[in-house]
């Protein structure tokens, strides 16, 4: 399953003071705290690891139909590679390993997470509303499967997770939405998704 998380860095900076006493300890393991405190850009690392945790839990929650939880320490992040604009890493949750890829700019961080490593995401991030990004996803999926966009309807399951339905059947659920501040984003996996398309 797939999960994503976008962070508007300007808003995060004004909304949260991660330097307050106790904050890092509630969210990050000693190893993760070390990644942050030994970095030259602590803010960036805090939000990168945060987005990895949020995106990974979304994927994990969906994979195993889990309830929402407030527990950031159950996700242990490792960074495999990091450049100025990108990062890849892994997140372990309850014995399950997820792979992440993040895009980092001065404005935002967008992380996509999937259980299968490097299966390839189609990511879109835009400065705009969540409805605009939902519309873009529908257009993209319709184009890929050669169906009419109006046939696809965006719905939510009992857990509140979005899926696309076509002719009253689940059509696709390997995607995730996220929004924060100025930005809205989706991650979509189209690799091997023929097997996950449940058609009547």
């Amino acid at each position, binding site marked *: 399953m797939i999960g994503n998380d976008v962070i508007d860095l300007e808003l*995060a900076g004004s*909304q*949260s*003071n*991660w330097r*307050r*006493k*106790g*904050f890092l300890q*509630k*969210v990050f393991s000693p190893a993760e705290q070390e990644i942050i405190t030994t970095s030259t850009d602590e803010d960036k690392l805090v939000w990168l690891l*945060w987005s990895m945790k*949020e995106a990974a839990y979304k994927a994990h929650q969906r994979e195993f139909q889990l309830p*929402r*939880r*407030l*527990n*950031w*320490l*159950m996700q242990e992040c490792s960074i495999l590679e990091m450049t100025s604009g990108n990062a890849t890493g892994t997140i372990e949750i309850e014995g399950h390993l997820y792979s992440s890829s993040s895009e980092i700019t001065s404005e935002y961080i967008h992380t996509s997470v999937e259980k299968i490593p490097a299966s390839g995401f189609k990511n879109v991030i835009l400065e705009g509303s969540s409805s605009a990004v939902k519309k873009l996803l529908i257009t993209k999926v319709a184009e890929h499967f050669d169906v009419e966009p109006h046939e696809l309807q965006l719905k939510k399951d009992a857990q509140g997770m979005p899926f696309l339905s076509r002719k009253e059947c689940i059509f696709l659920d390997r995607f995730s939405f996220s929004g*924060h501040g100025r930005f809205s984003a989706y991650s979509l996996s189209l690799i091997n998704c023929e097997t996950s398309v449940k058609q009547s």
Partner: protein
Amino acid sequence: METKEIIYCLKKIVKPYVQNDLAFQDFGQDTDFIKDLEINSANLVDIVLDVEDEFNIAIDNDSMDNMLTVNDAVEIIKTKQKEQ
């Protein structure tokens, strides 16, 4: 501490982080921090820390895990206060 009193304190703690003011008007036991008040998930960490300070308790990870609604928070605060 009475439930009513705890809820009153929680309302004060939560206020600066609320994104949905309309839902905040109906603040009560069933209020969900994320679904109703649309509180940013990073600010939930702030709320946990503020609750610890205000009630002078330590909220461990397992307890924090279930802190999704006002009622969840009330129960956690009561349990932790009893333990002391």
